[in-house]
C-alpha cells in the first residue's frame, strides 16, 4: 500500500517527469524560468493547484459525468474545473496572504493554461486511478514539475551571462538545454 504510493510518486517525479519525459507544461517551463524566485513562486502555486485539480476532476468524473452518462464531456468539464480551482486558489491566497499573492502575481491565473494540469486529470482517467491515487499522482506530477523548473531557473541565471552565439541566445539555448536535461532524465528509465 505505502510502497504503491511511493512508486507512484517516484514515477511521476523522475521516471515519467511531466516536463522532461512527457513534454507537458513546457510553456511555463520556458516562460517563468528566467529568475529563480519567480520560478519558486510558480512551482508552489502549481503544486497546490495541480494536486487540488487532480482530486476535483476525479470527483467530477466519478460523481457527476459517469452517473449522467456524459463521459464525452470530460475534457471541457475538466478545463472548467481547473479554471474554478485556479480562481478559488487566487481568491483564498488574496484574502489570506496578500504577500504571497503579490509574489505570485500574474502567474497564478496563468496556471489555467498549463497543459500539465489538464494532462494529469486525463491521465488519471486513462490509468484508472482511484481518489487517493489521483491525489498522489497529481502531487507527484507537481513535485516533478517544480523540481525541474527550479533547477532550470538556477541554470538559466548562469546562461544569461554566458557568451552564447547570437543565433542561439535566449529561448533557443534554453530549448537546447532542456533537451540535454531530457537526455539526462532518460537515465531514470526502468527505476520503477
Amino acid at each position, binding site marked *: 500500500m505505502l510502497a504503491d504510493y511511493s512508486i507512484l510518486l517516484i514515477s511521476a517525479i523522475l521516471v515519467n517527469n511531466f516536463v522532461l519525459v512527457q513534454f507537458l507544461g513546457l510553456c511555463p517551463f520556458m516562460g517563468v524560468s528566467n529568475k529563480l524566485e519567480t520560478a519558486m513562486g510558480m512551482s508552489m502555486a502549481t503544486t497546490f493547484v495541480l494536486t487540488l485539480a487532480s482530486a476535483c476532476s476525479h470527483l467530477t468524473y466519478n460523481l457527476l459525468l459517469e452517473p449522467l452518462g456524459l463521459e464525452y464531456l470530460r475534457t471541457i468539464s475538466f478545463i472548467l474545473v481547473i479554471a474554478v480551482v485556479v480562481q478559488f486558489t487566487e481568491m483564498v491566497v488574496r484574502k489570506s496572504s496578500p504577500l504571497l499573492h503579490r509574489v505570485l502575481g500574474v502567474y497564478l491565473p496563468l496556471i489555467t493554461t498549463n497543459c500539465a494540469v489538464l494532462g494529469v486529470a486525463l491521465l488519471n482517467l486513462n490509468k484508472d486511478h482511484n481518489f487517493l491515487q489521483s491525489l498522489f499522482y497529481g502531487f507527484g506530477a507537481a513535485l516533478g514539475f517544480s523540481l525541474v523548473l527550479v*533547477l532550470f531557473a538556477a541554470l538559466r541565471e548562469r546562461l544569461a551571462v554566458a557568451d552564447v552565439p547570437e543565433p542561439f541566445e535566449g529561448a533557443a539555448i534554453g530549448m537546447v538545454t532542456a533537451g540535454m536535461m531530457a537526455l539526462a*532524465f532518460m537515465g*531514470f528509465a*526502468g*527505476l520503477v
Partner: protein
Amino acid sequence: MTLIRISSPHAHGSDSTASVMRRVLIATVPGVIALTWFFGFGSLVNIIWASLVAVACEALALTLRRKPLGFYLQDYSALVTATLLGIALPPYAPWWLIAIGVASAILMAKHLYGGLGYNPFNPAMVGYVVLLISFPVQMTAWAPPRGLGEVPGLLQALQACFLPAQYDAVTMATPLDMVRQNNSLLLEDLWRDPLFGRWAGIGWEWVNLAFLAGGLWLLYRRVFSWHAPVAMLASLGLMAALFYDGGSSASGGSPLFHLLSGATMFGAFFIITDPVSSAVSVRGRLIFGALIGTLVYLIRAWGNYPDAVAFAVLVANFSAPFIDHYTQPRSYGHSKSGGQP
C-alpha cells in the same frame, strides 16, 4: 610613477588552462595503459581518432565565431574532452560512432554555450549519453578482457574502427551487466564465472585502480580539491553497503565491487572534477559528489542501464547552479544575508 602596494606573499602561480589540461592528459596515461593491456589497442585508436575529430570541430566552431584559432586550440581543452570520451566509449567502436559523439560534445555541449568556461554540462558526458541513447547496440558492445579471449592487435583495432563492416567483433557482457541481469544465482555462484576477478571483473579492477592512481596524482598536484571525488566514492560505497545483504541475487554487489567496476574511478577523478560544470563552493562540491554517487547506485541497481556515471553526472551538472545558489559561503565580515553582522 605610481607605486602599487601589494602585501606579501608575492607568490606567482604558473598555472594556466593549458598546463592544467596537460596534467589531466598525463594523468589518464596509467588508465589508458591498463585499458590497452586488458582490452587491446581499441581505446588508443578511439582516443587518437576522437582527438583528430575534436580538433577539426573546435577549429570549425572557432572559425564560425571568428575567434583566434591558435590561442584557443593551444589550451588542450578539446583534446581532454576527446580523450575522456575515447576512454568512455567501448573499444573497437566504428569511426562514425566516435565522430558523432565528439561532434555533439564539442559543437553542441561546448560551443553552443560560448566555448570553454560556459558549458553547463560536461561535454564528454553529453557526447556519451547522446550515443548511448541513439546507438545502444554499439555502445554496449565491450570486448572480452585479456584472459577470457584473444586480445586484438593494433591492425585489427584500426580495421575495427575504420572498416567496421569487415571486422568480426567479439563482445561480452561486462561484470555490471552480469550483476544487473542476474536474478537467480547467489553472488557467490555468480562469482565462479571466469569474468570475475578478485574484487570485481577481471581487468576492470585494474583499470579502475589505474585511474585511481592517475586521479591521486592530480589531487597531489592540486588540479582539483578532494571534496567531490571523496563525496562521490563515499556515497556510492555507503549505498552499496546499505543494500548489500551478503550475496543474494537481489543484492547489487559488494561496495568494493561497485567502487572498482565500470567507470567509477574514471568518473570520480576525471569527469566530476570538471571545474566548469561542477558546483563551485566547498559544501556545494560535497553535495554534488554525494548526489552523483547516490544516483550511480540507484540507476545501476534498479534502472535499465548497467552503468550510470554519465547520466548521474548530467543530472548533477543540471543541479549544480541550484546547489551553488544555496551553499554560497559567507564572505568575511558580513552576515549570511550580505549585510553587516
